């Protein structure tokens, strides 16, 4: 596809642990266009965070990317040298993690953490870097930015720390921002502030964003397209609207119905069982042990990702016969 900023295809990232091979990402593909926000939804163990780590090539050992390709601006990231990756990370591709207290360095001031990145990637002197850091803090909504530059992370609240992390991620005007559960550790009203800020900044900087989350509310609010992942595999890819109104995968349907609504109470449909063990994932379709529609074929054959219609893909043997319900709020 032309015009795609990021094309991840058939990515497999495995962890070679003593207990066995954990197939954390097992054939995930995801495309992100210019200035587009794409959602990657899943629960723990779905492979969403490892996908982000793979894109940045920061998969911790014993993990390894074993297959697939990751093309960023047309060039394969997996072929780049470590030095080239270093110039990419933080400048062209940035990331925000879930927990700002662990992603910021506790022994450096905010100023040091911001100016380090700015001076590494841009030809500016120290004074210009500090000025830039200050205006970034103001931009992400931190008042008294001069004073805050001298603060250490522990002196800031959770929401404030996440704003600093966002400022750091945006300091070199990246073309791609990977946001890995950026608001999960924040309070609701602070989450609302941060989501709104991300939306504004995304439009302002014309950057593309991969929003990694388990929250269907954030998906509905921020994204145009969504990839639903489960146990390291893609279950469904579609425009956000279609995922909510016309889901084709039983897991997507179950996920929509298992979440309580703030707007009314209704019976919650339970997804039975637990998230599968990725060392020995279920045979056939990974979701079949928990799927209420499962048939004999589902435990036998791995379903391929098929196109339902323009841009809507699903990996389910039964999608043609199932009549699934979307979210009726």
């Amino acid at each position: 596809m032309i015009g795609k900023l990021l094309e991840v295809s058939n990515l497999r990232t495995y962890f070679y642990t003593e207990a066995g091979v954990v197939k954390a990402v097992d054939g995930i593909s995801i495309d992100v266009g210019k200035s587009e926000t794409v959602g990657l939804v899943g629960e723990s163990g779905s492979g969403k965070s490892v996908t982000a780590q793979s894109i940045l090539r920061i998969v911790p050992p014993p993990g390894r990317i074993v297959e697939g390709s990751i093309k960023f601006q047309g060039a394969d990231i997996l072929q780049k040298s470590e030095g080239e990756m270093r110039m990419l990370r933080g400048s062209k591709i940035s990331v925000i993690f879930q927990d700002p207290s662990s992603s910021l360095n506790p022994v450096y001031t905010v100023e040091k953490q911001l100016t380090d990145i700015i001076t590494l990637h841009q030809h500016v002197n120290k004074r210009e870097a500090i000025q830039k850091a200050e205006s970034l803090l103001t931009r992400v909504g931190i008042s008294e930015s001069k004073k805050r530059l001298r603060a250490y992370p522990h002196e800031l609240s959770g929401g404030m720390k996440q704003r600093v992390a966002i400022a750091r991620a945006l300091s070199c005007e990246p073309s791609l921002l990977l946001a890995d559960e950026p608001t999960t550790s924040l309070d609701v009203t602070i989450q609302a502030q941060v989501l709104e800020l991300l939306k504004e900044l995304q439009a302002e900087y014309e950057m593309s964003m991969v929003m990694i989350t388990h929250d269907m509310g954030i998906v509905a609010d921020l994204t145009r397209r969504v990839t639903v992942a489960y146990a390291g595999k893609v279950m469904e890819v579609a425009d956000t609207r279609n995922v909510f109104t016309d889901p084709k995968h039983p897991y997507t349907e179950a996920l929509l119905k298992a979440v309580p609504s703030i707007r009314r109470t209704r019976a919650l449909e339970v997804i039975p069982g637990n998230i599968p063990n990725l060392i020995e994932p279920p045979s056939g379709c990974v979701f079949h042990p928990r799927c209420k529609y499962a048939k004999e074929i589902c435990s036998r054959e791995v379903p391929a990702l098929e196109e339902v219609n323009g841009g809507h893909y699903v990996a389910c043997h039964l999608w043609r016969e199932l009549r699934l319900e979307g979210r009726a709020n």
Partner: protein
Amino acid sequence: MGTTLHVTYGENLDSKAELTKMATNQEALLSVDSLVKHFDVVERGIFGRKTIGEIHAVDNVSFTISRGETLGLVGESGCGKTTTGKVILFLEKPTSGTVIFEQANICQVFSSDKEGARKLRSRMQMVFQNPYSSLDPRMTVYDIITEVFAIHKNIPKSQWQQRVSELLRMVNLEDYHAERYPHEFSGGQRQRIAIARALAVNPKFIILDEPVSSLDVSIRAQILNLLIALQKRENLSYLYISHDLSSVRQISHRVAVMYLGEIVELAHTDILFDKPLHPYTQALIAAVPVPDVEHKTIRMILPGEVPSPINPPNACRFHPRCPHATDICRQTAPTLKDDLIKDHFVACHHADKFL
């Protein structure tokens, strides 16, 4: 100051009728009156300790919970919701105020009567947020549950085995799980074990402190439905503490909203969510991203952050962040009252504007 809030149910329960049962008995099981909990902020110098301030964790909180009822307690981190729960169980000593549980004054019993205190403990239990830290990793599930029997001496040893398997089945686990250790279970299963342990003493009242927050979305529904089913079966009362408004709506009969140590609004669940009268409740509800693509309302963004509970703002504690604040809000503290709509308690000078 503190009025005891005894709220009876309206008829507006049709949507919940399937899920929850009305309290069969309107008698209050628990009543909390003007509860206050302040923590000293201490500075340690070379000449000893000096108290330099007070954290107003819980300020003048009053509510009741009936038999078979769930009261949701919502608020953001630091608003005092967990402290409220701990004070009710006397895990923290209240600064002032009373907690009456089944006609017994908790403070008196716990500070004077040891045997009575143990009896009370078996009537009220707590389930914590993180089942990874609330279960001892070196004990099997059998040991975890029977430790409770050993302390409370409520069951003869010969029946332990049978009771453990009964409890495990109540929370949808199997007999063979009893011999396993916590690390062999997933988060959802661990939370079931924590619930089984709480049920081991046949309590009437359980404080649930964020019981599903650390669980995956597909597992949350399992635990919420289990809690609702257990409540029906055992006529349990819950205090459901959470910051997740959707799950609060799902499980609670009534909801109290806390901000900086105070209850700012308390009403029947559907009424509170559909017609909130306090600007803070309105903002909280509006802040939750709704999983619906058709829903494109403009979010009401609250400016700033929750102020420090060490020196909470004067008068109405919400006024520095409130879009509707006027002079009166900066001068007088509003009281929690239900003079606009019966049983809909709100502490806001301007609540009538939101009717």
